[in-house]
């Protein structure tokens, strides 16, 4: 395999180095530089500025005075993030909520994926399509569907009140519980699909061999199926955890005012408080304490997978 790569490298090396190769690398490279990398540098810059009533609403780091450039760096934003417990608890909350939701999603998704993988041919593809279908419909609308169900005047309360089970409507929307439901509901397909693809590829005769060698069914599951489906569990968990940790829409629509999550905090700093420098420093903090560790983890995972093969 490595020799194949080297071949193609050489082929492009020799014949496209002057024109084609540079162009092919250049287009995506420049685009990502301009619209992905440089923006972060700007965010970093503004996180050191001071909020002002101006357009744009922040102070300039560089001011021209007689002898040259005067640089004013303001660490106040970061000190503020540390001093106000709101930000730290929002960060911790995000991780906690995302982690708990991921576990719930796994507990629901695993048996579903297993059931689909063991289903008969045509039924299997129908079930699989039913898992994929919600993914293509609007995310916002799927979250919205739960408003009507969980609301104070929603369907569950109406039903329970009519049946006489409760006399006062339950508060379900605008709670952390609703946020869990929202995350599990919207990200369940992301958990099922990778789990399905590892479970489906797994050789059934491995379990038969375990049973044949005297393993009880549940033990065969714990000793054979579960360890072999670890890559799927990991992939699915990451696919759920990563987007939910920075989630804005679900806590905003289903969570209460006390359901603090870091994405929502950033949004509010920006849109409600119009404090661009604080929003920028929240973004930088998220980047350093959330995105970088996740990317690092994925990098190590990929390396391990490569070495494993």
């Amino acid at each position: 395999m490595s020799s194949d790569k080297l071949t193609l490298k050489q082929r492009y090396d020799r014949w496209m180095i002057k024109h084609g190769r540079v162009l092919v690398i250049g287009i995506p490279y420049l685009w990502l530089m301009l619209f992905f990398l440089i923006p972060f540098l700007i965010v970093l810059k503004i996180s050191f500025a001071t909020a002002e009533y101006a357009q744009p609403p922040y102070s300039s780091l560089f001011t021209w005075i007689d002898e040259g450039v005067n640089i004013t760096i303001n660490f106040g934003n970061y000190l503020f993030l540390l001093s106000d417990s709101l930000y730290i608890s929002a960060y911790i909350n995000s991780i906690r909520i995302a982690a708990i939701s991921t576990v719930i999603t796994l507990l629901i998704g695993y048996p579903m994926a297993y059931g689909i993988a063991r289903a008969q041919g045509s039924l299997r593809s129908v079930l699989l399509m039913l898992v994929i279908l919600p993914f293509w419909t609007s995310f916002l609308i799927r979250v919205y569907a739960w408003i009507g169900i969980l609301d104070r005047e929603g369907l569950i309360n109406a039903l329970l009140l009519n049946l006489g089970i409760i006399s006062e409507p339950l508060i379900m929307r605008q709670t952390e519980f609703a946020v869990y439901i929202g995350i599990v509901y919207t990200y369940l397909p992301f958990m099922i699909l990778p789990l399905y693809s590892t479970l489906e590829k797994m050789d059934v005769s491995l379990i038969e061999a375990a049973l044949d060698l005297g393993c009880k069914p549940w033990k065969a599951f714990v000793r054979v199926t579960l360890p072999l489906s670890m890559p799927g569990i990991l992939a699915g968990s990451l696919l759920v955890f990563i987007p939910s940790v920075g989630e804005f829409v679900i806590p905003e629509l289903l969570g209460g005012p006390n359901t603090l999550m870091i994405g929502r905090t950033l949004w509010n700093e920006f849109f409600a408080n119009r404090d661009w420098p604080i929003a920028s420093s929240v973004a930088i903090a998220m980047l350093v304490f959330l995105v970088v560790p996740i990317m690092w983890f994925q990098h190590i995972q990929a390396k391990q997978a490569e070495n494993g093969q």
Partner: protein
Amino acid sequence: MSGKRSTFLLTMLVFGFAFLYVPILLVIIYSFNEGKLVTVWSGFSFKWYVSLFSNDGMIDAAWNSLRIGVMSATLALAIGTPAGLVMSRFGRFKSRTLFSGMVAAPLVMPEVITGLSLLLLFVTLEQLVGWPAGRGVTTIVIAHTTFCAAYVAVVVQSRLTGMDTSVEEAAMDLGAKPAKIFFVITLPMILPALMAGWLLSFTLSLDDLVIASFVAGPGSTTLPMKVFSSVRLGVSPEINALATLIILAVTILILISSLLILRSEKMRSRTIDPATIDD
């Protein structure tokens, strides 16, 4: 032996699919409700569909979203395809680590950060060079292209990595030069992946609320932005109607495409049987 296990799996499947589909079904049912209240069924009616179609703001937003979706998906293909090609076929080059980092990062980046950083870029650019003048469809398309290109790159890369390089080597061995190989051999072979990448990008663009909210300007409200601002205030029967239409459209598209896939697979399996064609 496995009776208990199958019962458990079956229960989980039924429960799981009910969990996935009951909320959607409720939205669809109540879109035909005469009254404004969600909880009370007061008769069948199309009136919310009529009201949806006479809501100019909503129609404009939908039109904006479709335009932005098509443009972003197309641009994302133009940028993501070479990126995927570079990742899978170019071996090592000087700044490869930075390159692959930039391709992979948008996939794990929280939307609020991507949105904020792009907005600050546009503001800074406008100050420095006067472009883009104000924010609107153009800035949204740029923003969507950036994160969709990453998805296209991943799809293309995984398709190319799974593809036997000897097919491309054979073309070269038979006298075709690299650029020609790409257009005559590689491109047709990854066409399904490109189509999937385009559709994925289109859907992601159509669905995005957070990034668009940051980089949109007056007059470029997208459908999710419009839906969000009305949903924030609670359930609205018009949104139920809109949701039903979206679900209908997606279901029809998916059914058609899976039927097409099924048919081509059937044709394939019919002709591949060597016993019937060996002489």
